C-alpha cells in the first residue's frame, strides 16, 4: 500500500486466460475488486464461474495472464506457498457439503487455524483463544449451543451453511469468497443468512466476493458485475 495514496485492489486480474482440454473457458483482459468492497458476481452455471474461483483461489494455474491478490502475484509463488497464501488470506463458502463429516462443529470452524498460523494468531488476539473465537462467530451467525453439540450430519442445511460461514470468517482473512452459499436454502433462511454474513464482513472490513446466478440477491450488494461482461469467452449455459 502506497502511503497517502489510493489503496491497491484486493484482487486484480490481468489478461487472464484458462483452458480446459484445449478449450478456453476464461479470457478476462481486466477485472479489479477493491479492498473492503462487497461484490455480487453473477453468472449462470457453466459460464466459467468455478474455473474463475479456482484461479482466484490459487488452486488452478492460468494458461496466461496474472492473478494478483493483495499485491501478491500468485504466479510468483510455488504451489505450497500458494496454498499457504490461500489459507492465510482467503475464506471460502461453498454451495453445500461444506463440512467434514468426521469432525465436530467447532473443529470444522477451526480448520483454517490448523493451516494458517496467522489466522490462528488473530483469532487468539480477538477472543483470547481459537475456540472462543469460533463460539463467538457461531453465536453471531445465529447458532445456539444445542446445535454446537450435534454431529455435523444432523444439522440442517441452513445450520451447516452458518458453520461454513464461521469457518470462512475465523481469524479475519482479508478476502471472503462465497460460491452460491444460499442456493440450497429456502427463502426465509436465505435473507437471514445473508444479513448475518454481510454484518460480519462489515465488522472485519474485509472484501466479499459473492457469486450467484440469482439476480434477486444483488440488492444486498454495493456493486454488481455480470461475469459475461468481463469474460470474453461466451459459453452456452449448461442446464
Amino acid at each position, binding site marked *: 500500500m502506497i502511503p497517502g495514496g489510493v489503496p491497491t485492489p484486493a484482487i486484480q486480474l490481468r489478461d487472464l486466460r484458462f483452458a480446459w482440454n484445449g478449450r478456453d473457458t476464461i479470457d478476462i483482459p481486466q477485472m479489479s475488486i477493491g479492498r473492503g468492497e462487497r461484490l455480487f458476481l453473477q453468472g449462470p452455471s457453466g459460464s466459467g464461474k*468455478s474455473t474463475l*474461483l479456482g484461479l482466484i483461489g490459487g488452486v488452478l494455474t492460468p494458461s496466461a495472464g496474472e492473478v494478483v491478490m493483495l499485491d501478491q502475484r500468485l504466479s510468483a509463488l510455488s*504451489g505450497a506457498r500458494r*496454498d*499457504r497464501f490461500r*489459507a492465510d488470506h482467503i475464506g471460502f463458502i*461453498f454451495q453445500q457439503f461444506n*463440512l467434514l463429516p468426521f469432525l465436530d462443529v467447532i473443529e470444522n470452524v477451526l480448520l*483454517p487455524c490448523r493451516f494458517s498460523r496467522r489466522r490462528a494468531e488473530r483469532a487468539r488476539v480477538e477472543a483470547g483463544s481459537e475456540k472462543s473465537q469460533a463460539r463467538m462467530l457461531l453465536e453471531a451467525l445465529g447458532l445456539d449451543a444445542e446445535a454446537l453439540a450435534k454431529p455435523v450430519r444432523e444439522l440442517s442445511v441452513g445450520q451447516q451453511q452458518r458453520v461454513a460461514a464461521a469457518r470462512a470468517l475465523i481469524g479475519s482473512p482479508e478476502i471472503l469468497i462465497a*460460491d452460491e452459499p444460499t442456493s440450497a436454502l429456502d427463502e426465509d433462511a436465505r435473507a437471514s443468512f445473508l444479513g448475518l454474513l454481510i454484518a460480519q464482513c462489515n465488522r472485519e472490513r474485509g472484501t466479499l466476493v459473492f457469486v450467484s446466478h440469482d439476480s434477486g440477491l444483488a440488492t444486498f450488494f454495493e456493486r454488481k458485475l455480470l461475469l459475461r461482461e468481463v469474460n470474453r469467452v461466451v459459453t452456452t449455459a449448461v442446464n
Partner: protein
Amino acid sequence: MLTIATIGVSVALLLGVEQVRDSARRGFASTVAGTDLIVGARSGSINLLLYSVFHIGDATNNVTWQSYQDITAQPEVAWAVPLSLGDSHRGFRVVGTDADFFSRYHYGAQRALAFSDGVPFRDVYDAVIGAQVAEKLHYPVGQSIVLAHGTGPLTADHADKPFRVVGILARTGTPVDASVFVSLEAIEAIHLDWQSGVRLPGQAISADAARHADLTPKAITAFLLGLKSRTAVFAMQRYINDYEDEPLLAILPGVALQELWSLLGVAENALLIVAAMVVVAGLLGMLTALLTTLNERRREMAILRAVGARPSLIFFLLVAEAEFLTLFGIVAGLALLAIAVAVARAWAQAHYGMTFDIASPSAAQGLLLACVAVAGGLIGCLPAWFAYRYTLADGLVQRL
C-alpha cells in the same frame, strides 16, 4: 469395519498356517524321542526310519538275532528295544517287541507311553493295541483278534493262533496309535509252521504246543538303541555301519526325521503361498473399498484444499487411512488366532501330536506381519495417488 474384519481373518489364517507348519514340524521331529540310534539292515536311512517308526514300507532284509545280541552287549549300550515287523491286523501294523518298549519309547517332549486301559503283554498270545486301533475297531480289553501275515492287500491269517487284547495305550498322536504290539515270542510262535511266507502243509503246530517250543527269535527287523552317554553316539553309529558280520545301518532319528521333513518342504511352502494369497485378497478388498468411496470424498478433499491443505497432505491422509485399517486388521487377526489356538490346542495335541504355543509371535511370524503392514500402506498409495490427481484437477469446486 468390514475391511478390518477381512484383513483380520486373512492375517489370522496366514499366521495360523505358519504356526501349524511350525508345530507340525516340531511334532514330526519328536515322533520318537530319547532314542539315540535306530538300527536295521543296510538300506536307505529314510527307508529305515519309515518302516521302523512310521510303519510305512517294508524292510529289505532282517537283522540276525546274533548281531542284535552282539551289539547290545557293547559297554556303551544302556538299553535296547527290538522290533519285529511284517504282520498286520485289519490294516494296522503288528509290532513284535519286548516289554521294555512301553517304558523306553518316548515322544514329544520326552513323554512316555501310558495305558488308558489294561496292562502290557505277559502271555505269549497277549496283545496291546494303540488308541486308534481300539477306537476304529471298537476293541475292548479281552477282545480276541487274529493276526495276518503280510502287510499288503494279500495276507494270510494266522487263524489257528488267536490273540487276546490285554492293554490299550492312550493317544499319542504318533504311529504308535495305529499299531498292535505283541511279544517277540508271539511272532516266533505264529511263524513256527511257516516258511518263506507260506504255511507248511501237514506240519501244523497248535497254539498250545507252540507255547512250549523254543521261541527265541532268529531274526528281527530293527531295534532301538539307548546309549549311556550322548558322546558315544557317533562312535557307536560308525561301529554298527562297519559291522563285519552283517550289513547294518544305524541312523540318528533326529537327523533322519529332519531329512524326511525337508522332502515335504514343497508342500509346506505351497501352504504358505496359499495363505499369502488370502492376505492379498483381503488387502485388495480394502483397496476396492477405498477406491469406491474415493469419489464421494472428493468434496472433502476440495474443502481441505480450500482451507489451505497441500495436495501432498491429501495423499498422505489416504495412505495413513489404508495403513490404519491394515494395522487394526493385524491386531484383529492376532486376537482371532489367539482364540483359535486356545480352543484347538488340546485337540491338536491328542489327535495330531502337534503342540501350539500361545506365546507371542516368533521372529518369522513377526516378519510376515511386517510384510502385511507394509503391503497395506503400499496399496493405500493407489487411491492416494488418484486423490492427489483429483484434487489438482478439481480446483476448488468439484464438478458435480
